[in-house]
């Protein structure tokens, strides 16, 4: 079989060059958060990690992430031990910046590896018309995602690595033999960052239906598989929580609040006067609806669709969901966006609105051209390429929906121009809420629209 060009590795090399050039770019407090975690895990015994309070940025990710930080801190010690001092708050010497930025690039190799599995010929199902070319295009679109560039390489986080694990887990679920591994990998991921708990219901239903229950009858439980899965999960959780056992209560606290509770961000769709309880109920409701279909027809495509819809539900209705969580929707969706044109037309408004909604994360003028030009570059490249690669659907398309999605994408250009340039020129520093409001409502409309569209596609296919 001939090679498809460009290869993932080639894209990764060029992307890495750009990411290294971005070393001096703006970095958020997350940079200091992660530096502090390096310091905590390196200089304290394991049972004190979750009690350390010198910095306001206490360690509040689950234990596997703490181990991950610990492993990196071992290297950091060789590079520049100063960054590992607990009391060196806000320390950002150039060695620290280079080291931490570099770890983001290196750990993204996990994502690269996972995407290579996505493109591997044995995972391509030609019966569905999904050619290797389409799989490779989707994989490259994830690798070059502006979301990851903005959040990880400028704003600073380690999502690339973790989404790599998620994709590996999703792809493993494709083959029957990989189901157990998929579940365990996902459990491990949950022990790295609790935000993925939003996707857990889809995993639960899918594994229950395909792994624990036989395909024909749902009444004969496959006990051996259940035992395997159960003991695997216990092992993973044990590995995570046994060592910093004493820290468990703190960690549960963190799990309950689900995010660190960064308030006052421009995360949208959460109206005032809504209690966490209502949010939870709504999230659950809109997760259960697609999950019933998954339970009845447990195919891999339906599973990815259900994961995507769980992501949508939690992003739209979750309590204190940060705008960064949009990647929970975009990345699983990318894997099936090229199934046919109907999927693609639901994906397009999401791709635009999801990435535009990340713009307020970077508010410094020096990063403005990077975020806008890179996002426009990505949108133009992949929307055109996907458009060529997506096969026609065998079902009637939603005529109006297509037109609206094109109109929606067209609006983004004047909107970005207005918000970034025209508003400042016309109003100066007055009415600063206006651009933010426009952006938020635009993004909200796109996400909700694509959600409704995808719901339709999901239930009719």
């Amino acid at each position, binding site marked *: 079989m001939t090679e498809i060009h460009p*290869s993932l590795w*080639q894209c990764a090399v060029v992307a890495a*060059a*750009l990411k290294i050039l971005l070393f*001096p770019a703006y970095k958020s407090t997350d940079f200091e958060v992660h530096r502090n975690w390096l310091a905590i895990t390196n200089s304290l015994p394991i049972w004190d990690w979750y009690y350390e309070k010198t910095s306001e940025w206490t360690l509040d990710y689950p234990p596997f992430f703490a181990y991950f930080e610990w492993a990196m801190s071992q290297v950091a010690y060789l590079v520049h031990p100063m960054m590992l001092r607990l009391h060196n708050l806000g320390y950002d010497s150039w060695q620290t910046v280079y080291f931490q930025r570099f770890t983001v690039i290196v750990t993204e190799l996990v994502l690269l590896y996972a995407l290579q599995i996505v493109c591997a010929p044995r995972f391509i199902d030609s019966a569905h018309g999904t050619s290797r070319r389409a799989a490779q295009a989707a994989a490259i679109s994830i690798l070059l995602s502006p979301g990851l560039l903005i959040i990880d390489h400028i704003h600073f986080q380690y999502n690339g690595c973790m989404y790599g694990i998620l994709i590996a887990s999703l792809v493993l679920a494709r083959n029957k033999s990989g189901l157990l591994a998929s579940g365990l990998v996902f459990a491990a991921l949950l022990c790295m960052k609790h935000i993925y708990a939003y996707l857990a219901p889809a995993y639960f239903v899918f594994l229950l239906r395909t792994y624990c229950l036989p395909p024909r009858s749902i009444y004969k439980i496959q006990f051996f598989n259940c035992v395997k899965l159960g003991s695997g999960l216990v092992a993973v959780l044990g590995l995570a929580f046994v060592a910093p056992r004493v820290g468990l209560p703190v960690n549960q606290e963190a799990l309950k609040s689900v995010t660190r509770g960064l308030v006052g961000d421009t995360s949208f769709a959460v109206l005032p006067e809504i209690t966490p309880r209502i949010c939870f109920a709504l999230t659950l409701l809109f997760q259960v609806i697609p999950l019933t279909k998954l339970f009845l027809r447990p195919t891999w495509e339906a599973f990815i669709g259900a994961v995507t819809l769980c992501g949508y539900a939690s992003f739209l209705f979750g309590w204190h969901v940060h705008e960064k969580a949009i990647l929970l929707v975009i990345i699983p969706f990318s894997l099936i966006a090229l199934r046919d044109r109907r999927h693609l037309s639901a994906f397009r408004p999401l791709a635009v609105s999801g990435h535009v909604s990340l713009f307020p994360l970077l508010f410094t003028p020096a990063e403005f051209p990077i975020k806008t030009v890179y996002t426009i570059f990505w949108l133009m490249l992949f929307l055109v390429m996907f458009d060529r690669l997506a096969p026609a659907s065998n079902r009637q398309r939603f005529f109006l929906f297509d037109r609206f999605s094109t109109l929606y994408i067209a609006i983004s250009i004047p909107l970005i121009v207005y918000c970034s340039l025209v508003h400042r020129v016309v109003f100066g520093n007055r009415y600063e809420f206006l651009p933010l409001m426009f952006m938020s409502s635009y993004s909200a409309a796109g996400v909700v629209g694509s959600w409704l569209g995808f719901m339709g596609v999901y239930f009719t296919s």
Partner: protein
Amino acid sequence: MAAPSSATHKPRRNKAKKTAAYDAITKPESLVRTPSFPLASFLWPARGSVSQWEVLPLILMAVGLFRWAAGLWGYSAGAGFQAPPMFGDFEAQRHWMEITTQLPISQWYFNDFQWWGLDYPPLTAYHSWLLGKIGAIIDPTWFELFASRGSHDPTLKIYMRATVIVSEYLIYIPATVIFVRRYSRLFGVAPWTAWVALVAILMQPATILIDHVHFQYNTVMLGFVLSSMSSMLAGRHMWAAVFFVAALGFKQMALYYAPAVFSFLLGSCICPRINVGRFATIAIATVISFAVLILPIVLGTLYDASRGIDSQPDLDGPRPPLPIFPQLAEYLDTNAIYYPVVEQLVQMVHRIFPFSRGLFEDKVANFWCAINVVIKMRKYPAVLLQRISLGATLASIAPANLILLIRPRKELLPYAFAATAWGFFMFSYQVHEKSALLPLLPMTILLAGKQGLGKDIRAWVGFANLLGAWTMFPLLSRVDLKVPYAVLTLLWAYLLGLPPTSTSAYFQEGQSAWLQWSTAIIHGAFYILMIVWHGLAQFVTPPPDKPDLWVVANVGIGCAGFILCYLWCIGKLVQESGILTRSVRQSPGSKSKTQ
């Protein structure tokens, strides 16, 4: 507007390509199954039916991203970031925006020379004035007279970076796009191949490093030169002259190309037959564009003089004699109305061409600096050195220009421009490291030409560019720009499949084994030397009695490599012009008939 024209041209071009394909060494493009280097892989999906309106914006956005990201790094700030007292090129450019917007026009070239006095031609001054005016709308404190000196406001940095990019996207990039299109069509090269070449040209590491990282506006001048060259390709000789005057008017360094421009334009007036009309048009256009160029200064001086504004307000007592050509004053009436204009123009020339400085200032990889290791040049009188330098420069540029004069063919332009610029770089007076950009540009545009992406040209163009960037390393490392240097240089090497990332550009089928091996061994030796040098410069401190050892080694190796590039350009020029063999002349001659 270009799309329909390309459609009408297509059949004819294909025919031309077919005839040209016989003397081609490598396979026709349609038979190539796999891309031979990573940059070709990236554009691989764009083969076939993709329109240029989809590919071109993506290319321009991608190269723009790399430029802006590289610009996030520090700029030239003297010895170390934000170091007083003089800062660097960044402060020079900012200061010019300050004086051009704050002082009357007649004082621009007289203002304090010690603090980055304006020593570039008038177009740079007007450009600075415009950017200063726009910048002052955003923040007037950036360009306040005196108070703004040495300012390192981060927003100012962003504004200045943006001005470089905007200037480049208005001048250099359209010029490159048009040049690549015209030059590739001249040889019947397919549009897809031309796009690959375009990306390679726009990602040239040295240009990005000097303009967007270290900070300068070279690409404006280079853009005018490319416009001039594409006008020559299109047969618009008058416009070639006008654009070249603009290049000269922006930066006097464009003089490196002047002999080649002159030879080509003159050659096309006398060969194949004498064309007086064309000669007159070119001459008049040149004179008029020079006049337009200095017109604002002349009018401004007259206006200021009529208002009683002195061009040298700090001066007490009688006016000093003219800085150069003092004998002029004997023939002129110093009280006449035109005298301030004469004084202004003489001062401008004096500022732009600093004859009073030494043969070389810093360590630069040219002949004089390299020979200085063996023979100390400073012990000779300056006049003698100037004469030797002039003689050597003329001797080095003579072959290329004579060939261009008797064979003024469009295909030869890049070779002749490169050879001439190399000659100037190696032997002329007061050369700067950054001047290596001038010979590199015409060499790099060869990628868009016949067999441009084949191994031979790719290997040599890559060698020159990587060596050129390498000789700029001491300049860049002085201001902590090692990381962008490493990233941009290695990225370009990777994209074009060049050492140290790959050896795919060597051992071309169909070439003589002797030539292949000698090229590979010579280039390989230089690449190994460069890598070893980087290791030494990074980890080994030079002996105390020779603190400049690594810089001198850099100069020596760089100079030797540049001489090779110069010889290669001359060799290719001779080969392509066909003045030595009559049989080679046949095919280009028949091709020029089809046009």
